[in-house]
């Protein structure tokens, strides 16, 4: 991997950045880029998928990740039914929902859809701490998934009627006499134009447009007699009446596309250096036209910038990325109910992001405690028995690929988990931990390397 100054984003030429990457002598398509793509567009991959992606080349590989697979509808139907049996309407319990969502991330025929569902979960920040109801959170995640790769405008309209979102914004009552500004504030400050653009008057006016929409009895209701039918002015646009009018007005504001694209940039490109307005403006401009997510992702995942040192290993793995990457690498399945609990203790509880702005992420994932807990989780995941049932068997997988000697095993694991991109010092650490029949110990050694915590 060619190293340059990955933090110098202010000198990047936007035209070069968003042009489609063509492998060349200076930046050839290799296993490292295949692994990079599969980690960012999904949650990682096993050896066969890495090899298939390498063979396909970047354009075909990205097209494959973006295409809707034939089996997705059946998969979604089945998993919706599984979740329904695990989450009751009367319970605050979400362990089952967490377990099934993690299972979807591991098994979905379109990992990108789950990746984006997780992104929107982080972006919207609805939490069971406020909703206090498993069924509402299940419906919320279904809304996110349904629109994950579709129209952002439709997603916002759906969320304006979603109980978990409204409860998370403190909007359990909205009467005309005193409209609650919770959702309107979140809509303007978080979901559309971003902080510091809308005034308090904009927020109050927007809240009036959502008057008469209630969450009562854990159900979303609209009471027409409580609607405020007077005209409102929000973000300089007047003659607005309904909530949908306000969403449309907010999306028409130039700051909205920039705000969303900036968050997506941090998720897909880099969280180490914030992009300049100039760098993201080409993406924002195209996104603003129809707010379709899929074309935006296609541009990002095929871009020169995505396959450059500015993006490579410029994010710290979240606990979910850390754990699922390990599981997927060994083509395994593990009990995901305890995994959900372990991820919560690492700071990433699905359905309970701490803020409306989601998880802090980045360096916030890492401290002395969580590093130790990550090492313990990796050891538990590949242990021969215990709470993950010994389901992952690195030794058998390596043996199936012909890696039996300590040297071959060490090389295979470094290729599988880090696509061979490891400094000599770290490579020696892994080698030292790799003895015959000690694949599990070798995996533990890889999982504590700094390189493995980057995505």
């Amino acid at each position, binding site marked *: 991997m060619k190293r340059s100054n990955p933090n110098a984003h202010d000198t990047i030429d936007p035209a070069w950045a968003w042009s489609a990457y063509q492998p060349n002598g200076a930046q050839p398509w290799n296993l490292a880029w295949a692994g990079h793509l599969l980690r960012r567009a999904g949650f990682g991959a096993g050896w066969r998928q890495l090899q298939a992606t390498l063979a396909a080349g970047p354009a075909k590989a990205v097209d494959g990740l973006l295409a809707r697979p034939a089996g997705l509808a059946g998969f979604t139907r089945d998993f919706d*039914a*599984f979740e*329904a*049996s*695990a989450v*009751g*309407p*009367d319970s605050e319990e979400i362990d*089952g929902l967490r*377990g*099934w969502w993690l*299972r979807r991330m591991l098994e979905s025929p379109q990992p990108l859809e789950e990746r984006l569902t997780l992104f929107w979960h982080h972006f919207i920040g609805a939490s069971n701490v406020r909703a*206090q109801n498993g*069924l509402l959170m299940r419906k919320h995640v279904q809304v996110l998934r349904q629109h994950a790769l579709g129209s952002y405008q439709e997603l916002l309209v759906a969320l304006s009627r979603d109980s978990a979102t409204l409860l998370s914004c403190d909007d359990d009552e909205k009467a005309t006499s005193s409209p609650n500004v919770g959702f309107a504030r979140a809509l303007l400050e978080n979901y559309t134009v971003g902080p510091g653009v809308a005034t308090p008057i904009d927020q109050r006016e927007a809240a009036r447009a959502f008057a008469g929409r209630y969450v*009562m*009895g*854990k*159900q979303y209701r609209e009471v027409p007699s409580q609607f405020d039918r007077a005209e409102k002015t929000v973000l300089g646009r007047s003659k607005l009446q309904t909530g949908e009018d306000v969403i449309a007005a907010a999306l028409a504001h130039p700051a909205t596309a920039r705000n969303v694209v900036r968050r997506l940039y941090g998720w897909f490109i880099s969280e180490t250096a914030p992009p300049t307005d100039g760098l993201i403006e080409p993406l924002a401009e195209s996104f603003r036209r129809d707010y379709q997510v899929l074309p935006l992702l296609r541009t990002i995942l095929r871009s020169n910038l995505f396959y450059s040192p500015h993006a490579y290993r410029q994010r710290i793995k979240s606990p979910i990325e850390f754990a699922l990457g390990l599981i997927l690498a060994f083509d*395994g*399945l*593990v*009990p*995901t*109910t305890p995994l959900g609990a372990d991820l919560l203790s690492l700071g990433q509880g699905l359905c309970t992001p701490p803020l409306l702005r989601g998880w802090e992420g980045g360096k916030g994932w890492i401290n002395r405690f969580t590093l130790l807990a990550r090492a313990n989780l990796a050891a538990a995941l590949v242990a021969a028995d215990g709470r*993950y*049932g010994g*389901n992952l068997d690195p030794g058998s997988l390596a043996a199936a690929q012909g890696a039996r000697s300590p040297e071959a095993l060490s090389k295979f694991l470094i290729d599988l988990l880090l696509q061979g991109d490891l400094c000599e010092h770290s490579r020696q650490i892994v080698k030292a931990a790799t003895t015959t029949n000690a694949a599990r110990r070798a995996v533990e050694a890889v999982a504590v390397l700094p390189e493995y915590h980057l995505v």
Partner: protein
Amino acid sequence: MFVKLPRVLLLVLALASAVSSARAEKLPPAIDWLPEQALAVIQVEQPKVILDAALNPGLQALLEATPEYRQALAAPQFVQFRAIVTYFEAKLGTDWRAAARKLLGGKLLLAAGPHNRVVLMLDTEDAELLGKLHSELVTTARADAAGKGREDKIKSADYQGVECWTFDGREAHAIVGNRLIMASHNEVLKAVLDLKANSGASLARSDFYKAAKAAVGDSAVAWAFANLSEVKQQPAFIEGLNRARNPAVTFLSAGLLDVARTSNWVAARIGYENGAARLTLLSDGRPGDDTGFAWAKSGDGAWPNLVVPRQLAGITLYRDLAGFYSQKDKLFPERTSGLVFFENMMEIFFSGRKLTDEVMGEAQPQIRLVAAAQKYDGAAPVVQVPALALVFRMKHPEQFSDVAEEAWQKGLGLLNFTRGQKALQGMIIDKPSHAGVTYSVAYFSKASAEDREHLPIRFNFRPALVKMGEYLVISSTDGLANDLIDALQKEKAAPPRPVSGVNTLLTLDAAQAAALVEVNRSALVADNMVKKGISRERANKEFDGVLMILKRLQSVSLSMGDKSQHTELTLEVKLNLP
């Protein structure tokens, strides 16, 4: 051809074959040769009954349905074992089933003593076959050792006029007449042979053994004896009893753990007849004052189980609730503060009445619990749970039945209020009648269900309270309440006799259990998938295995009580075998 013989396997085969030459000789019972230091002994009196049951094709199919059994069959060690068995089948000119019937056809005794000392005595029916097998084993093992250039460890020596053998220098075995004696250590074999020569004390002469033998009787297929007088002094045993002690376990087990403290011996009788396996545990331990709440006076006991349509299980208990609760400070001193809180809460429900005397004291000791599969009107909930009901007999129904109904309504009111606080649907309270009995029921209206085609689990519950003469029924559904009204009216017409000396009776209908499991297949499979991290195919396979086991079972019943001055617990499993 040399066959590789693992040491453990060699010992197992030697165990069944170390007969040199057989001479018909009338021997005393093997127990007479067992040293008195033995702590536990199992005696198989009718091995063929067990062999026939074990080799029954239906039971084999049942075992093959379990993943553990299939895994064991596929294990390399078992494959190797099977190859060796095939080798010896060819050498001996017989198949293993026939050989097993001949070799294991007599009586068998297996005993354990202090310091992991073990001895096995087997009275074979075909000493000639055993001799042949032993001879083949010796030859093969010696050839194997020679082939590998190893020392021949097979040795023999004379003791008390008997030729004794060892295969590895540690175990020791000998043959006396048609009896094979195999011991884990040579000093154990010596002790057995000393007893044969009338030197030393045998377990058969101990008072505890004699008492246990008399309690068990002569008809057992197999039975076991354990000397608890030594075991109960062990700190680990005492700690285990203390750890298992909690209100629910003490109440349901009728203080059986405390009975164990006073026991000198425990015996187990195993019977098998017409597809029914029966295990009976007997002990000389007696309940103390603390646990007298579950032990009826002479002639009294639990009432027979009630029978209702679609019955899944019935449990009938003899428990003096007030007697149990009044001993709480002695039984659970560490839980007193929690129980005080519970008591205060109950006094709110029962309008200031004292929980022990004025509430629990109003109940007769005959308590019955019934579980039955439900019949739903319209769509069934996505997860179906059985209906459950408790049937009490009141001492003063004219005074207490309204008190109970008042507490019931307070409970429902509190439930509705707390659900309302969480914006959840509440219950509607109604007063329907069935067979001339008007009772109280509460239910969730389906009109308010989120999805009427996929009803949530709460629609399994329609709690009902029935006051019917001396009976007080608390049921999770009105359907079961109706069935119990019918059953209790029949009972009133022909009052049952208590089952004398019995304080616990449980019956489980496996067919109903299988049906209930089957209707919840998708939920159970999904739960297994996510909790174990397995594929849907594997989860389905595991589910089918459990279902197959349930379908091979007919019923399970358990009874516990005080019979003929012994504490007795009997478990009976009836199988559906072809």
